[in-house]
């Protein structure tokens, strides 16, 4: 097992830059998520780590060794493809043993290893079946088997659950996480599903247009987004954005929106201009005493909670509140925000303005 360090990694396809000077570090044994919308360069980044694509510039260290320009076969990593890519002309056993055969491992030992892996994954009964007729889940397990059998330095997975249907995904993601906890292998996992990333990951890198927007634990990324993009991409419903204009000193603990002071974590830098007040729906309460007011335009019932949508002078706000709390459409109510959780963003660049809340996180960059 090994840690992976990516430094200033860049990939161009002709004129087009798919990945722009990315840097991040995957600790030994971590389950690391590469998250971002379609086309943002996740797969390209992963393929560069694997050696299936050579970087235009930058360095990749696996276990302390610089491998950036080495071919895939010399990197000792395992890759799980989105489409699994099981060799169709071989049965399950041969698929799993194929990586061992390439190392010239003796037959008896290969058999033993394959049996061991099959037991871990619970696929002992299908070992002699052709891969053609397998169900999605079994195919997934065989693909994992082929990856773990060799005990590589790390696992790279490109949306490994993408081909499964929603119900089964959940089950497999749990299985995958358990497998990881048991083996403690460094894993880089690509997904565009923020929920999957939050549930499974120890750390998350959020990418957009080939740029790393933020890098940190799921909690940090959720609570202390470094940019408007991250705040919007993570969470469902996503963070509320109230746009306003103003001028704030370093140390300010209030922002004034529509003549109402709203609490914020003490700022660490001054700012003057167009800003965005960001607050998660669960940190918005309906309160008659609050001065900041909005009109209820919709209420969506979700069992124990409901999502109430309100129109305010600074834009639409969603509040997640208990479902037994009355919320009638058309009513105008007061809105109380939990200021300690709020983040201010520069409306122009989208970056978060430094405050007591996010100071520690932003310095990672």
């Amino acid at each position, binding site marked *: 097992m090994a840690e992976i360090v990516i430094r200033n990694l860049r990939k161009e396809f002709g004129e087009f830059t798919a990945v722009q000077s990315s840097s991040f570090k995957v600790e030994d044994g971590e389950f690391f998520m590469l998250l971002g919308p379609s086309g943002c360069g996740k797969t390209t980044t992963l393929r560069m780590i*694997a050696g299936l694509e050579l970087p235009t510039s930058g360095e990749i260290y696996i276990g302390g060794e610089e491998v950036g320009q080495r071919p895939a*076969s010399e990197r000792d*990593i395992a890759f799980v493809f989105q*489409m*699994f890519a099981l*060799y*169709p*002309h071989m049965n399950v056993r041969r698929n799993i043993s194929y990586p061992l055969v390439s190392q010239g491992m003796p037959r008896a030992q290969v058999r033993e290893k394959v049996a061991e892996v099959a037991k871990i994954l619970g696929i002992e009964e299908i070992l002699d079946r052709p*891969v053609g007729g397998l169900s999605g889940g079994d195919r997934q397990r065989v693909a994992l088997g082929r990856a773990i059998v060799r005990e590589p330095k790390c696992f790279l997975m490109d949306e490994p659950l993408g081909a499964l249907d929603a119900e089964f995904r959940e089950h497999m993601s749990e299985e995958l996480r358990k497998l990881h906890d048991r083996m403690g292998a460094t894993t880089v996992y690509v997904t565009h599903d923020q929920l999957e990333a939050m549930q499974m990951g120890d750390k998350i890198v959020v990418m957009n247009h080939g740029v790393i927007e933020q890098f940190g634990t799921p909690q940090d990324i959720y609570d202390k987004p470094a940019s408007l993009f991250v705040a919007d991409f993570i969470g469902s419903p996503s963070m509320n954005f109230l746009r306003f204009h103003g001028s704030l000193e370093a140390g300010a603990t209030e922002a004034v929106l529509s003549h109402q002071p709203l609490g914020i974590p003490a700022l660490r830098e001054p700012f003057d201009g167009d800003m965005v007040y960001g607050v998660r729906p669960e940190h918005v309460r309906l309160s008659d005493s609050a001065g900041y007011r909005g009109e209820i335009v919709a209420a969506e019932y979700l069992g124990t909670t409901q999502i109430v949508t309100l129109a305010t002078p600074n834009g639409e706000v969603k509040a997640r509140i208990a479902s037994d709390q009355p919320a009638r459409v058309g009513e105008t109510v007061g809105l109380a925000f939990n200021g300690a959780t709020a983040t201010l963003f520069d409306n122009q660049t989208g970056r978060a303005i430094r405050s007591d809340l996010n100071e520690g996180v932003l310095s990672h960059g």
Partner: protein
Amino acid sequence: MSAYSVTAPSRRQQWIAGVLVALYAVITLLPLLWIFTTGFKSPSDAIAYPPKLAFEPTLEGYVNLFTTQTRQTEAYLAENPPESWYEEMVHAKGMVIAGPSRFGERFLNSVIIGFGSTFLSVFLGTLAAYAFSRYRVPLKDDLLFFILSTRMMPPIAVAIPIFLMFRSLGLSDTHAGMILLYTAVNLSLSVWLLKGFMDEIPREYEEAALIDGYTRFQAFRKVVLPQAATGIAATAIFCLIFAWNEYAFAVLLTSGTAQTAPPFIPTIIGVGGQDWPAVAAGATLFLLPVMVFTILLRKHLLRGITFGAVRK
């Protein structure tokens, strides 16, 4: 059952389809059957009118095909009694066997040139198609178009330049020359067909193999080739059929050593009057190799491209 049908065909549909297929089979197989039976007729039965459906089968056509014969005097015939059934057959006509005919040689030439050029076309085609499919080749589209453009006119249109070229290169009437020529003609078909098949094979298979520790060539041999077997078999059949049946270049460029069967078979007609049974016998034998080859590779032709291991 079928991967393509939404509903199973009804009984009626099956019946109609069956009749149509049978009809088509009769139309295409009848001439072959005619050639096959003519090969076993006597010369007079072969030209009888109205055509004889029932006749006494004889191997005379095949004997004539494989031997050259000369007329002899009664005295000579009496002195040299026939030693085998075929000599006896020839004696009955007042002739003796002078030696083997050239059919065997010509047939062997066809086999060497046909299979040789097929092997070369498919071998080179597979490598080229793989490169075109997987690598960033400079001017790829132009190269592919250039390769295709060699198909845009009938090959025989360049017969004269090729004839002159072969003469000055000393390739006229040689096996190597004919193999080269047929390979050149077939290569464009082979590259394009195989590129299509290669494009269909997901790259992930090779990439998985590369990551599993195999070299690019090993991945090609162990993972790509088995996947491309269907395409390779189909391409080989097309190439063989062209090379095997080719007539015009063979007439023009070969006359002796490297002459193939197609230009030879018509010459049989002139040997001893119009010997249709011998011609039919030659045609029957000539059909066999392609037939056997196709039947051997049928499994690959019919087997659909395996899907399922990769989800699309």
